[in-house]
Structures are given as C-alpha cells and as structure tokens.
C-alpha cells in the first residue's frame, strides 16, 4: 500500500528524513515509534504530500506521491490531482484540527459534499452512521468547543472515514488527550484495525503498538533504526538506540 525507498526530506539546511525505506501492506497496521524530532510525523505528512520529499521514491497503492513518471522524467502533479489523491488517504492529527465553526455533523459531511459532490442527504446519513460508529450518535449538532478532547478526536476520525479512505494516517492521535480519554480513542482505532483498514500510526502508546500493530518501526534522527513484529522489537530490541528509548517509555 505504501512503498518508501530512500526518502529524504530537508527543511532548509536541516535534514529531517535521511533515507527512509519501508513498506506497508494492504490491511497492515504499522506503528511508527521514536523520540520526538526523529521525523515520524514528517514522514507521515509526506505520504499524503502535505510535505514534498526532496529525494527518493514514495508511492501509495502503486502510484507515486505528488508526481507522475513519464519516461525517465518526473512531472509534478497538478493541484486537483494532488487533492484527489489526498482524498483517498485519511489523516488524523494530534490537535484534532476539527473545523470550529461547524457542528460535528458538518465537520463530517463537509468534505464528502464539497470534494465528492455527494448530495446533502446522503452525506448526512453517512455522517450519522459514522458518528454512531465512533460512539457519538448524540453529539451530531454539537460544536467542537463543547466536546471533550477524546470526543473531538473521535469526530476527527469519523471525518476522515467519511471520504472512504484506503489508508489512514494517525499523527500522535492521543498525545493531546487527558490520560482518562486516551482509551476511548484507541478503542475506536482498534475497531478500525479489526475491520481491515490499512493504518500508519505515529504513537507513544506502547500498549496499542503491542496489541494492535502488525509491525512497528523505530525511527531516530531521520532513519529507521529497526523494524519488525511488535513482540520482537518491543521485547527483544537488537539495537542499542531502541533499547535506550524503550527503557524510558515502558
């Protein structure tokens, strides 16, 4: 589903990603772990082209992200094409980024109506179904400011799911939550994983990585230090850096 080969990303002179190579299979749940500043979030943002990569190759579902290959040359995609590809990839942010001037339902129906041109009634019906699925059936007409952090993040998940994505990206979805609210969000994500969604999750929740992930990737300073099955990487890390990190968070 996601195929990265030697992905580099620089911000000015600062090199954030120094050659990331990894693969995510359809239906796989991959957790990206690592200390802050290791490039996990940047890599996630590269996958749906919120950040442009400087070198290497990155493709989703067999198609290059942000470019089209014609012969030996790469052509940048036009804005509408980038937008269409983004619409197939859902993203959930650390700070929820719900649209504060819209109710929960409007947050969820907005993109299907504007981007997919779905009729209002269909979008609304689908939105109710999704809000019900994340356990917020009663909060349809509530504005984000009146919801708790955990509820906001669940609306954000429903909003991303409304576009029927083939891939979901989670950027530290529980890091901004009060500890007692983390569980409700992880629960929704776990259910999503069980339903077969392909997911790439940047997280510090080791319990989630251990139980839900099919694979974990440990990143540090812009490179993949080690990757493998959660049990192997979390219980018997081969690399010293992984061991040092895990000893601090576990």
């Amino acid at each position: 589903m996601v195929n990265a080969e030697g992905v580099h990303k620089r911000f000015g002179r600062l090199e954030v990603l120094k050659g990331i190579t990894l693969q995510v299979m359809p239906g796989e749940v991959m957790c990206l772990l690592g200390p802050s500043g290791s490039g996990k979030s940047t890599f996630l943002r590269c996958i749906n082209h919120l950040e442009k990569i400087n070198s290497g190759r990155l493709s989703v579902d067999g198609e290059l992200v942000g470019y089209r290959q014609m012969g030996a040359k790469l052509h940048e995609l036009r804005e509408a094409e980038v937008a269409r590809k983004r619409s197939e990839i859902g993203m959930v942010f650390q700070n929820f980024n719900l649209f504060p001037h819209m109710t929960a339902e409007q947050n969820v129906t907005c993109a299907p109506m504007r981007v997919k041109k779905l009729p209002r009634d269909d979008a609304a019906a689908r939105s109710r179904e999704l809000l019900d699925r994340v356990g917020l059936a009663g909060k349809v007409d509530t504005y984000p400011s009146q919801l708790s952090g955990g509820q906001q993040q669940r609306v954000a998940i429903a909003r991303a799911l409304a576009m029927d994505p083939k891939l979901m990206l989670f950027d530290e979805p529980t890091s901004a939550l009060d500890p007692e609210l983390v569980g409700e969000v992880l629960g929704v994500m776990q259910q999503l994983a069980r339903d077969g969604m392909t997911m790439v999750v940047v997280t510090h929740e080791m319990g989630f990585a251990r139980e839900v992930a099919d694979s974990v990737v440990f990143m540090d300073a812009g490179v993949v230090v080690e990757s493998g099955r959660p049990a192997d990487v979390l219980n018997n890390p081969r690399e010293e850096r992984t061991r040092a990190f895990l000893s601090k968070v576990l």
Partner: protein
Amino acid sequence: MPSDEVTHAEGRPEDIRAVPVRRPGRWVAAAVVLVIAVAIVRSVVTNPHFEWSVVGHYMFDERVLEGLRVTIELTVIAMAIGIVLGLLLAVMRLSPNPLVSGGSWLYIWFFRGTPVLVQLLFWYNIAALYPKIGLGIPFGPAFVHPNANTLITPFTAAILGLGLNEGAYMAEITRAGIISVPEGQADAARSLGMTRLQTMRRIVLPQAMRVIIPPTGNETISMLKTTSLVSVIAVADLLYAVQNIYSTNFKTIPLLIVASIWYIVCTSVLYVGQYYLERYYGRGSSTERQGPLVERVLRGVLSFRRGGEHSRPGAGEHR
C-alpha cells in the same frame, strides 16, 4: 453526575452573605459625572443659539434626506469595493509569487500613505492627467476611449477615491484575519482532498471572519463619516446639503446639528448590525453565549450596583 445528586438531595450549602466593602471613591466619581452631565444638558436646553425649532424644521427637509441618501449610498458602494478589493489584495499579499505579493504591497503602501482627501481631489481632477481613458489592448489599439470628464463624474470620483483607499485598509484587516487561523485547519482541509480555493472559502475565511468583522465594523462607521469629505468635490452628500441650506439662511449651527444627528443615527444602526454579525461568525466559539444585546447592556449597568463584578452566568459550565 452522582456526586451532584447527593449535594442536591442534602440541600445546597448556604451561600456566603458578607457585608460588601464600602467604595466611597466610586460614589464621589459618580456624583462628579452626574453634575457635569446635568450642566451640559441644561446648557443645551436653555442656550437659545441651538435653535432647536430650526433643527426640527430641517430634520426631514427633502434636501437633507436626499443628502443622507447619497451619504448612505457612498458608504455602501465604497465599503463594498473596499471589502472585495481588500480580500483580493490580502490573498495576493499571501501569494508565493513575489510579483503578485509585491504588487499588493505597493498598492497598500501608496493608498495608505497618502491622505484620502488628496486622493479624492486627484480623482476629481483626473482629466487633467489623462484627458482620454481608453479601453483596449495594453500598448495596442483602444476600442473605446470616452472623455475622462464625462466618465469620471464627481460621484464616480468619490466612489473611486473612497473605495480604492478603503481597499488598502481592508487588505491589512483581511490578511490579519487569514493568518490568525491556525495552519492545522488548512492541513486538515487539504488532507480531506479540498483544493486551495475550497480550503480558503469553506474553512479559512469563515474562521477569519471572527477576526475581520470587528475592525470592518469600525471601518464602515469611519467610512460613513469620511464620506463627508466628498462635499469638497461637489458631491451632494449630507454635509453638502446642509452647507447649501445654511449658506442661504445662515442657520449654521442648527443645520450642522441636523447633519450630526443623522450621522449618529446611522452609526448607531451600524453598531447594532455589527453586534449581530459578530455573534453569527462567533458560532462554535466559547464567547458566543453572552445573551442578546439589550440584556448585555442592562447587565453592564446593573453590575455597578452589584459591586462591579462581571459574572457571566453559564460561562464554562458546558464541556
């Protein structure tokens, strides 16, 4: 919540009833203000030079009402031009293309840097600079070239002068509004597959409005008063109308009062409109629950008696 029910069942604990602190300074200040106010009112009522009967006579004079109509028309058109132009210039200013953003910067620099009265006079005398104004291919042949004097009437000159000037100010206000919206909002919209234009229109601008509306209200009120400058270029606005009248009957003060009353009536109406507009664009934010305008004003007056504490019932109770 179970804990709440328990307290209710046992009856609420008694509220504290303490003797309030005496505030003599406050009473002295109030007395001073009151004395000054009475003195002003007394002088206004008893001074015969105000000639209130003349004020009443001209209040609804046809010429005055016609002037008022022109003033309102100028305000509406100039503000409309200003808002549209401001939005365009603000988006241009934020463009990655240096020529586009530079052009916007230059425009704002020029129109904010010169007095609006000078600009009005410029537009009024534009025929001296460009006797003919052609419409056609740049540096090529023109299809139509009407005479500047017939095209730029005093009213058009007024609209151009006020509108183009306002555009520069509105651009800065709009830009401030746009950059006040967190970047994560645009990230979220784009990750859902919205284009730049959709993101701007559906997500960023509606939120920017909360920041844009209050200063825009001020600009509108200010514009209503600035239109009085156009009397200089012979546009028959409210001020020009009363000037015309008192130049023949010499009732200068009463007629200026007539104009002032109309100006203050219009700005008061705008205040109320601004309040409701702010409430609309504040939806979803925590400051929206303030109750209607009248209630808020009353509460402000009453709070003096209650010792000046600003209690906002209901604030922060939801979550």
